[in-house]
């Protein structure tokens, strides 16, 4: 098992998470994932009243929804919102990692995140590669939404 994470191209917060996972044993990686699952922020009320505005992540085996807000100005901070049931802790854990690793970055920084970032956490051996595809799907949907919302902001 590798003990050094490949952090090239990863934003600082995500790189730190990757290092924590890679340094952990397989068993500890599941514990860490559970922490991210437990700590995933609740969906704000403005979305719970309007769930149709959320996008379902079809790549996940459990019902998980997400949406993205892109702020204004040069920094254009990106905020991520997830909705995943307590019965789907693995999916919640993936969402928690993406939230902790990406929330607050600029749109450009989010778009620059390598598509294989979810593969750099050493989770394939802890949860199986098939399950990890759900996280890859979440990242690609986040980036697609950021792209759409940035374009919409630019034409306003």
């Amino acid at each position, binding site marked *: 098992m590798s003990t050094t994470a490949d952090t090239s191209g990863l934003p600082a917060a995500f790189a730190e998470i990757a290092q924590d996972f890679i340094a952990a044993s397989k068993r500890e990686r*599941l*514990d860490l994932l*559970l922490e991210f699952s437990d700590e995933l922020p609740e969906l704000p009320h403005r979305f719970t009243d309007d769930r149709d505005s959320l996008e379902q992540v079809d790549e996940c085996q459990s019902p998980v929804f997400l949406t993205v807000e892109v702020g204004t100005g040069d920094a254009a901070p990106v905020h991520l919102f997830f909705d995943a049931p307590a*019965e789907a*802790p*693995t999916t919640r854990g993936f969402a928690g990692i993406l939230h902790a690793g990406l929330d607050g970055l600029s749109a450009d920084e989010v778009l620059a995140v390598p598509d294989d970032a979810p593969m750099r956490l050493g989770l394939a051996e802890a*949860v199986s590669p*098939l399950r990890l*595809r759900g996280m890859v799907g979440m990242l690609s949907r986040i980036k697609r939404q950021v792209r759409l919302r940035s374009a919409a902001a630019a034409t306003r």
Partner: protein
Amino acid sequence: MPVPFDPDAQLVSYAHPERLVTTQWLGDHLDAPGLVVVESDEDVLLYDTGHIPGSVKIDWHLDLNDSVTRDYVDGERFAALMSAAGISRDTTIVVYGDKFNWWAAYALWVFSLFGHPDVRLLDGGRAAWVGEGRPMTREVPSPTPVGYPVVERDDTVLRAFKDDVLAHLGKPLIDVRSPGEYSGELLHMPDYPQEGAMRGGHIPGAASVPWAQAAAEDGRFRSRDELEHIYLESAGLSPDDDVVAYCRIGERSSHTWFVLTYLLGFEKVRNYDGSWTEWGNAVRVPVVQGTEPGSI
């Protein structure tokens, strides 16, 4: 010494009531010597969020499947897995899990390939236990490893391979996937796009009985009368039929295998675990599309 069977009145009408336990029985027997409770879920972390006190986790992906060849673990790996879980050959195992025991039934089927003598399912699974407010814990037990013998897996009785199914065409087959997968409209199960196939449809002659029909609204198995109506009268099966069940990767059909074998007393039911992810990708095997079973 074997743990006594659950004599609950709601189980006695089934063909093999000794293969099921109620939540009440399990609650009363959690400390029984010779009993090990196993949780097996779709979600690899669900056990870690809270589980029945004293239970151990066995994951279908990481523990029961070989990580290289598409097959189950061999006798040595199975023995190591059981031993580490504190299970010996004469242990009574009770399996439970999420999603109407879907993955629990799959684990039970794999345990049966190794001929584990006494393995039972918790009727209603995790949802029934949680729904009744019964105790859950995050405390993970540390079982004392016990000796489990290396038993060669027997794939001849409960398991069917693609060639077996080709030879079986014309005899009873049961497709337990969703109607859209059966007809060929969907190339994957709703919400499971990553386990797709090149072709959609079903194996010629297969009756369509989605697996979850066997579960009542509360997640417990339907009564024997209701199950007979579904599988005998509607689907036209008979308990002395030679039946092959399949789905997408063999998990949902494990659930149906359990129902036919232990609740309805069918003598010969095999699970085709290659299922649609093999058949729908295989070259020049016959496929039928639409809602009718069709023929070869």
